[in-house]
């Protein structure tokens, strides 16, 4: 059998998705047995120019992690789309913006100002900002253009499969890889490496009636390890989040933050979660319910932690 040609690339990413691929551990050798890695900046020394020289669609599968935040990210997204037969949005950042897309609550100017002018360790008497095109003598140095907001991969190019998670768990990555090798690909556009049920379904905690009298923040209580965290008053996104991770955070006695993305059929994970919480608050008088709700701080950042770029509103409206 011809060896597969595999690529992996990080755009606006933290590197955790690369580590997750390495975490398939001994399977890395199985992968190497059936695939040639033709581009993987963190581990293999091929360069952009090598990829440019490849034939169109000659990479069988490209795992693209990271969101798109600048012109270099966009350029590579387009290049890898052109060179790849199958493009996978790998990890929450590529799927839905992930943590980087929380920056969509802020204006680009404010971000640049904070980092390069205002932060207390910065000494910048001349108020210099990084320049996309910097000229010294007759050399021009180009830096990537820092975009106004953060995009998910499919805002830029068509994507064949989505593999969510921050990062996706190694078990799921390996399963998806086995499917790729088998050639039995699911329909294009599918979300892979996930369950069709909610995280609550695979969470082993005891669930009773979901009725909550008050909410707590993670540092305010020590929850027991047996009962549903949401019923104990912790904001757990389990009900609106896809299963697949094996309830990892719950195992550490912490609530789910929603990295596996919305359940099938939900178009906006955060908006749906508002709906869920609205129905479980155990107060009938509107004012009392309001007081309970006011104990939830930073609801937007919490409910859209991984899905900001794909939320219906895309980001905060900038004055």
């Amino acid at each position: 059998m011809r060896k597969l040609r595999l690529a992996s690339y990080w755009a606006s990413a933290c590197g955790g998705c690369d580590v997750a691929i390495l975490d398939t551990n001994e399977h890395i050798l199985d992968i190497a047995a059936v695939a040639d890695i033709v581009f993987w900046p963190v581990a293999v020394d091929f360069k952009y120019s090598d990829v440019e020289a490849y034939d169109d669609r000659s990479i069988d599968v490209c795992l693209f992690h990271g969101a798109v935040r600048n012109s270099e990210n966009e350029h590579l997204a387009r290049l890898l789309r052109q060179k790849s037969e199958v493009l996978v949005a790998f990890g929450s950042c590529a799927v839905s913006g992930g943590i980087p897309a929380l920056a969509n609550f802020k204006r680009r100017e404010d971000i640049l100002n904070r980092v390069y002018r205002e932060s207390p360790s910065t000494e910048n008497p001349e108020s210099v900002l990084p320049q996309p095109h910097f000229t010294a003598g007759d050399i021009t140095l180009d830096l990537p253009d820092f975009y106004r907001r953060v995009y998910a991969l499919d805002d830029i190019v068509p994507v064949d499969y989505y593999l969510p998670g921050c990062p996706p768990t190694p078990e799921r990555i390996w399963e998806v890889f086995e499917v790729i090798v088998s050639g039995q690909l699911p329909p294009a556009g599918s979300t892979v490496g996930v369950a069709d049920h909610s995280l609550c379904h695979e969470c082993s905690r005891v669930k009773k009636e979901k009725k909550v009298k008050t909410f707590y923040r993670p540092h305010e209580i020590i929850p027991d390890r047996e009962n549903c965290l949401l019923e104990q008053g912790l904001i757990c996104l389990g009900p609106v989040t896809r299963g697949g991770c094996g309830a990892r955070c719950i195992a550490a006695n912490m609530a789910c933050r929603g990295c596996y993305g919305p359940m099938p059929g939900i178009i906006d994970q955060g908006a749906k979660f508002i709906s869920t919480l609205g129905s479980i608050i155990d107060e009938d008088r509107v004012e009392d319910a309001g007081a309970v709700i006011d104990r939830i701080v930073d609801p937007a950042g919490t409910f859209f932690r991984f899905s900001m770029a794909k939320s219906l509103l895309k980001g905060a409206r900038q004055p």
Partner: protein
Amino acid sequence: MASGKAVDAVFRVDPPPAAKKLRELYYSSHYIHSHIAHFYALAAPDFVMGPDADPAVRNILGVVGKVGLETGAAVIKHRAMAQEIQALLAGKATHPVWTLPGGVSKGLSREEAGRVQKVADSQVEFARFSLQIFNDVVLANSGYVDIILSDAYRLETSYMGLVDSANRVNFYDGSVRIVGPDGVETGRYRAPEYLEHVAEHVEPWSYLKFPYLRKTGWTGFREGRDSGIYQAAPLARLNAADGMATPLAQEACEKMYATLGGRPVHAVLAQHWARLVELLYAAERLRELAHDPEITSDEIRIIPREVPREGVGIVEAPRGTLTHHYVTDERGIVLKANLIVGTTNNNAPIYMAIKKAATAAIRPGVEITRGLLNLVEMAFRAYDPCFSCATHALTGDLPLKVLVFDAWGDLVRELT
């Protein structure tokens, strides 16, 4: 981990001793995973395969092919076990959801501690084995030793690293100690005082800022005692300390300095050796903590009672001193943050190291090959495979572009 310590400070709460030990245990395991990955996947290809080997094989898979499947399997197994311990405590090895102001969310059962003990024993052996490989493959090859000690990879700057009260390397806690290029202490600070010692310079041609020693000031890209440039990461940590807190690592550390001509060592590529010394320390420390009776205590959290406001947390990340500084509102929601992350510390040194390596390698009459360019990149890889975390909001590997000019300033070649 730095953010965990920063929120302790924000909420003005001191975690119970067991929680601190658990955090350090977790963090030792994190170091093991990170250092194994950095050494075997990023550094070893250059040394085991040779700097000018074909990129198709100059990678971890090529290394496995050459050192044998058995060694390859041991590398993978030990990195995997290090990740397993992190996941055991924190749910996930990457992006743990486990530190909270005042402690950690989950402890270690007696049974789990037993598992950690077993893993730690194996990690100590593996770290020694890795040092042996370094000895056999790199040190036994005088060609490599010459490269390591050559002027092309020598950078004389100040160094920075976290030390305990006896000035020994510590990853989780202590004071940051700064030594000059002559190895003499020039500064020392606890987390809240970081702004008195470190500042960052901005250049229009880089999204990444350039930290320097505030007391010396920004003096440009210069080496030496009067320059504000300092380095962080493994070699710098060893240079900034007087030794290691565990016996085998101390021995390995002494051997390194004896071989390379005493403290401090300015050879950029000795970074890889220092990394392995740290690997051994992390493994030994993991073993010590796993045997500590307090590690299975239930006292792992204190609920904070103070009104949160501002805090700084510092740890040593595998790639350098990591500082998190938050200012919050009275609910603890971050209003302002300032981070100086591992590799950012080394930004100026990386540019300087690359320039030196390039100047040495690219000379009239020498044909510019990919192997030669790789010699330049090796200066970079000593520090960090990834600039992504170091650029805050920005990302991407910085593609290295070499423009070669002739004596009249005309561009003769451009390589990327």
